[in-house]
């Protein structure tokens, strides 16, 4: 058996994994990254529009600060997030943007003087202050009260991933490419690393580490149409689920992005709307102001997606019947023609390329066919604010794979790539602290590792060449269809019950998947055969969480329970999978209203439909009283919900701004 030791095993080579590895390296530890693909091909590269950080440099961002970013994030989450984590995040985001600036990201910069922009469909002139010349600029995004989204044209994820990928090479951090973790090595209390398979040679290796960090991204590919890369099959979450002890959080919280192109499902950035683009229906009518007169196209993603679906739905089913028919089903139009060719060429060039190559159109002249499409996984491996699983010591998770719970039930655009680097910066420190503590001592006998490798090896040998009667491709298509139709943008009890039953059946049938090719080296058929049962377990966990949650919150919308119910459901769903069970076990973790800095309130979209938590009014009066005392904002904040003591000491200082320095 091949054994490799590292201090920190990082599974996943995207932004979150890379930044964590760089952090622990800088603390004198030896990290090792496993990645399904070369690190720079990770899904982080696909982020287009930008990264939220409250720098407040550009004219439309002046006056921005951590308070505003925090509040936007909490409202965006529909009060489902962990507010302490949201506070830590808002405080860290400017530091992350500035660190990346120093490491090479060519952020778009403020150009002093007057420039034209499109706001609410109208051309306006914005005057940028002389003092801000050359500082990092920002664009508008949905659900934010200031222009806060830092960007490099619309290739932000690319620029960030290449800067961090290069940094990892500079610091000689090894990345094992085309290697897939198959199982976490653990004894029920402590995680010791992972068994991983070389996707080329097929060889299994036990990677033993003091700490293991899962940074594998989301699980969007359990849906039929997703903006996610093909590798986002949720295998990191599945690794945790397979332990039987670690828990997943809020798996039913799945985001649908308003603007993916039809039929390819490729994303075009929210920056299109942030920069002034509008949505139109079959009549060319701009319909969002009819539904959301205040935020219009820049309402939160969950809201815009639902409004679009409503607008397309036939009249007899309660909709407006205003979708544009096409051979691939109905869609709506995204119109960015008003922005002009020069703006598109400079700031939305990926969008232009996508339109050119996949649709054969020019977005400066033509409307873009779009509809809401699965985009982001708010759920993931449940961790504490340090990124560690409370049930399996030494197992950490960050980025989209994790649920430390920054996003609750809806993530704001631009908060995802921001989260990856912020979480990576923090985990670099927390994981290093863990490794240097008594808990971080390595105390593993290689017998345990041998057992895990033998188990995986035996499983793969059984699978390869097995004459089973089920087709993995067929089962997968059925799973994707069920998830899209019954566990999508709109959900109801009947549909979800059917989904749970059918997914359960598919899971049972997946034990008999046939694999024609018998060889154990590079073998795509074998890969699908062992991943699919895990994807089905995740799909079941999502569907069961959605069925149990009889309320509507953020992206989770129940037609049969349209109210947000804080009284009964201000809780986080936890799921684990007992070994041998046919379904996950769900339980719940309450959110403590009396410790919230921003007590639950009306989010401001549509009609108020809310069952209040009994503590909300009480906490609100406490908060109001403190705010009335009119201390400076930092003092008020630290009274309401102290968080700085939780940060690594090196990150506790205040962020400088033009207006505040």
């Amino acid at each position, binding site marked *: 058996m091949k054994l490799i030791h590292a201090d920190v095993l990082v599974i996943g080579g995207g932004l979150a994994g890379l930044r964590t590895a760089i952090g622990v390296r800088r603390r004198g530890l030896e990290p090792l990254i496993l990645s399904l693909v*070369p690190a720079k*091909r990770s899904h982080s590269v696909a982020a287009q529009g930008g990264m939220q950080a409250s720098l407040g440099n550009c004219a439309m961002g002046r006056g921005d600060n951590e308070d505003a970013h925090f509040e936007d994030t909490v409202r965006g989450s529909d009060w489902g997030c962990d507010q302490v984590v949201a506070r830590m995040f808002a405080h860290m985001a400017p530091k992350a943007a500035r660190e990346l600036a120093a490491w090479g990201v060519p952020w778009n910069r403020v150009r002093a003087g007057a420039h034209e922009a499109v706001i609410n469909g109208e051309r306006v002139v914005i005057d940028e202050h002389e003092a801000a010349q050359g500082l990092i600029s920002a664009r508008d995004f949905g659900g934010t009260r200031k222009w806060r989204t830092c960007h490099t*044209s619309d290739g932000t994820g690319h620029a960030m991933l290449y800067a961090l990928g290069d940094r990892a*090479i500079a610091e000689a951090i090894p990345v094992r490419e085309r290697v897939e973790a198959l199982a976490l090595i653990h004894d029920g209390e402590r995680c010791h690393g992972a068994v991983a398979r070389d996707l080329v040679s097929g060889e299994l290796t036990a990677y033993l580490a003091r700490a293991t960090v899962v940074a594998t991204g989301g699980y969007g590919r359990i849906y039929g149409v997703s903006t996610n890369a093909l590798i986002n099959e949720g295998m990191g979450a599945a690794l945790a689920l397979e332990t039987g002890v670690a828990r997943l959080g809020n798996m039913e919280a799945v985001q649908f992005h308003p603007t993916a192109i039809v039929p390819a499902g490729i994303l075009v950035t929210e920056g299109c709307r942030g920069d002034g683009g509008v949505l139109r229906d079959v009549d060319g009518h701009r319909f969002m102001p009819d539904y959301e007169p205040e935020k219009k196209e820049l309402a939160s993603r969950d809201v815009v997606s639902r409004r679009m679906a409503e607008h397309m739905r036939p009249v007899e089913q309660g909709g407006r019947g205003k979708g544009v028919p096409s051979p691939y089903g109905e869609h709506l139009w995204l119109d960015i023609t008003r922005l002009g060719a020069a703006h598109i060429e400079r700031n939305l060039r990926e969008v232009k390329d996508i339109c050119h*190559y996949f649709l054969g159109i020019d977005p400066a002249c033509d409307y873009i066919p779009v509809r809401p499409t699965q985009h982001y996984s708010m759920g993931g491996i449940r961790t504490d604010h340090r990124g560690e699983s409370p049930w399996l010591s030494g197992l950490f998770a960050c980025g989209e794979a994790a649920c430390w719970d920054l996003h609750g039930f809806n993530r704001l655009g631009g908060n995802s790539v921001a989260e990856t680097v912020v979480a990576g910066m923090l985990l670099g420190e927390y994981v290093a602290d863990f490794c240097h503590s008594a808990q971080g001592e390595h105390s593993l006998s290689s017998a345990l590792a041998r057992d895990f490798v033998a188990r995986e090896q035996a499983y793969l040998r059984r699978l390869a060449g097995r004459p089973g009667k089920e087709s993995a491709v067929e089962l997968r298509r059925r799973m994707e269809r069920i998830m899209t139709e019954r566990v999508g943008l709109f959900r109801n009890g009947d549909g979800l019950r059917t989904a749970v039953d059918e997914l359960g059946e598919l899971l049972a049938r997946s034990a008999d998947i046939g694999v024609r090719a018998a060889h154990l*080296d*590079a073998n795509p058929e074998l890969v699908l055969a062992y991943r699919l049962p895990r994807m089905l377990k995740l799909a079941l966990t999502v569907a069961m969480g959605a069925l149990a949650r009889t309320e509507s919150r953020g992206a989770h919308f129940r037609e049969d329970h349209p109210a947000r119910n804080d009284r009964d459901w201000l809780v986080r769903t936890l799921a684990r999978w007992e070994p041998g069970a046919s379904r996950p076990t769900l339980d719940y973790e309450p959110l403590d209203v009396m410790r919230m800095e921003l007590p639950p309130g009306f989010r401001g979209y549509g009609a108020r439909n809310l069952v209040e938590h009994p503590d909300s009014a009480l906490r609100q009066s406490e908060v109001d009283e403190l705010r009335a005392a009119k201390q400076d904002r930092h003092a008020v904040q630290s009274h309401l919900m102290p968080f700085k003591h939780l940060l690594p000491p090196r990150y506790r200082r205040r962020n400088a701004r033009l207006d505040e320095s």
Partner: protein
Amino acid sequence: MTRILDFDILRHNPRDAASVPRLQRYRLAETSGMTLFIALTRIREELDPGVHFDFVCRAAVCGSCAMLINGRPGLACRTLTATLPAHIRLLPLPGFALIADLSVDTGRWMRVMSERLHAWLHVATAVDLDALETRMDPDRAEAVYELDRCIECGCCVAACGTAQMRPDFVGAVGMIKLARFRLDPRDARDDGDFFDLLGDDDGVFGCMSLLGCQDVCPKSLSLQTQIAHLRWAMARRGLAKAGADHGDGI
């Protein structure tokens, strides 16, 4: 009328001593909007589950799926079959280690190249994360991003005459990276440093100006201009260095 497409795909497993490279034919009815990603996925799902190829983003941003499409390097995911004749020949990208069929190891190649060329931003001073960021000219930032848009797909290496003859040639990808850092005011290196990395026949002086790279770059990077400029700058630096070494000044 629906076309019937014939795909001739190179099949070979280099780890199997019995495997002989061969072209295998697969036949599909074309559908509207069909890309090579859609076609290859259907071939794997419906005709042959064992065919190897690499797609990750399927949106032309990750650089995984470069291959020879009727003899020309390109990204398979964004290539519409409608732009091709009914007979489509797909071969793995030359110049890289073959994993199997259409899958090649560009990742290893890129990492080795980056390590050799020190292709990362060389930061002069420690960064203060709490202070206002260092200012940067907005035009310069945009110009740096222009060169930063390389996706390391390997098309330029596959299309390069020099790379066929010199296995250690850094390719347009290597040169555009150093051009990018050279343009970046945050990078502490000067032309002397870049000359040490690039001033030989495996670097900028190995380029024969055939410029296949420029023709096939899927991101339309200004490779021709950048290589020419870099060669001029490196030649000037080399001459100055030679002059200084010989004491006769230039």
